[in-house]
């Protein structure tokens, strides 16, 4: 199949059961998208498919054929961090960093679609992303800051 990730088309060989997250990690070789539960609950595998955040453990790779997939690796522009990434760094919005790629892509979708999000908007947006380290307060602060920048 052909899988387009971060604007690059990859010719890959997949079993029909292969999950999008595994295709991205193992065939395309981009390991910033993480596996935390494989049940759609933790959000560590979040990617953007055709402009919408999606949990890539709940999508068959074949189903993404013809779609534009974006992963965490596309967020920074070379060494220049995206404002959302910078805000997470400034606000200590992560500790171990495992949930971080999913959090960042989810936060980016929010700040792009909702210019001045309320705290409630932020909480609802990151509702599908589990973090076990931070207690979320600094993540909320980071999203708030990113929205304002």
């Amino acid at each position, binding site marked *: 199949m052909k899988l387009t990730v971060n604007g690059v088309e990859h010719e890959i060989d997949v079993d029909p*059961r292969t999950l999008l997250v595994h295709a991205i990690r193992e065939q395309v070789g981009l390991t910033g998208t993480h596996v935390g539960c494989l049940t759609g609950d933790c959000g560590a595998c*979040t990617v953007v498919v055709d402009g919408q*955040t999606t949990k890539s*453990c*709940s999508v068959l790779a074949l189903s993404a054929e013809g779609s534009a997939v974006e992963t965490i690796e596309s967020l920074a522009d070379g060494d220049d961090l995206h404002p959302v990434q910078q805000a997470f760094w400034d606000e200590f919005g992560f500790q171990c960093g495992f949930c971080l790629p999913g959090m960042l892509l*989810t936060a980016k979708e929010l700040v792009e679609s909702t210019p001045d999000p309320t705290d409630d908007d932020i909480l609802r947006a990151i*509702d599908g992303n589990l973090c076990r380290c931070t207690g979320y307060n600094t993540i909320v602060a980071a999203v708030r800051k990113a929205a304002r920048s």
Partner: protein
Amino acid sequence: MRYTRPADVDGVTAALADGDAVVVGGGTMVVPEMTHGRVRPSAVVDLAKAGLAGIARDGDGWVIGAMTTYTELARSNVPLLATAARGITGGPQIRNRGTVGGSASYANPSSDVPAVLVALGARMRLARRGGAREVPAAEFFAGAFRTAREPDEVLTAITVPDTAAAPGYVKFKLVEGSWPIVTAAALAGPTIRVVLGGAAAAPVVVELERASWRARLRSEVDRLLTEPWDDVLAPGHYRARIAPVIAARAVAGALEEA
């Protein structure tokens, strides 16, 4: 495992004709079930390109494509359903992907959509090779994870009639991330209908008079909710205990709007 992604409904019904294929809608439930071996299909029919998404007006109501996502529903003004869609958990990722048709077909007792559809008097459009039929939502939800859909059928759309009644929707969950424990979808018109979700294997319909609803609600719920749903999150007796409370909140919410 065979994988097909038909471009239209005819392609879907053809692929389902043998009755051994599993439908993938948004995939949010069925794909993880395949990963964990709870579903081991020999063939998969992916609805992604079958043209089943979107909400349209049709006469005195809506036609909602089975592949309409929660995100789309949340932006619509379909009563109750839009409210319920906004409250779906799992984050925007699930709301972007999970579909109304998938939720209905899955028929998980602990979910939002079934009770809402029953409250709205929705009808479910099913297609199979060479035929189609419509089933009222109240008949479609046959039990826990059971619907009136046959294995060779696909749910194509859900029709929802307009209503002048005032809507009220309340969902009770244990914490942010839990399945709904009890939901109540109320419509307050000349009479009041409130449908309980999560409380039993299938939605429970409670009909009440406006004048006497507060007095009658508890006894009606007790009478109708004979076999409350029981799972690892909450025992049946707990669901039975709070069902009238949640129902009353939904009705009160509807009446405030009226």
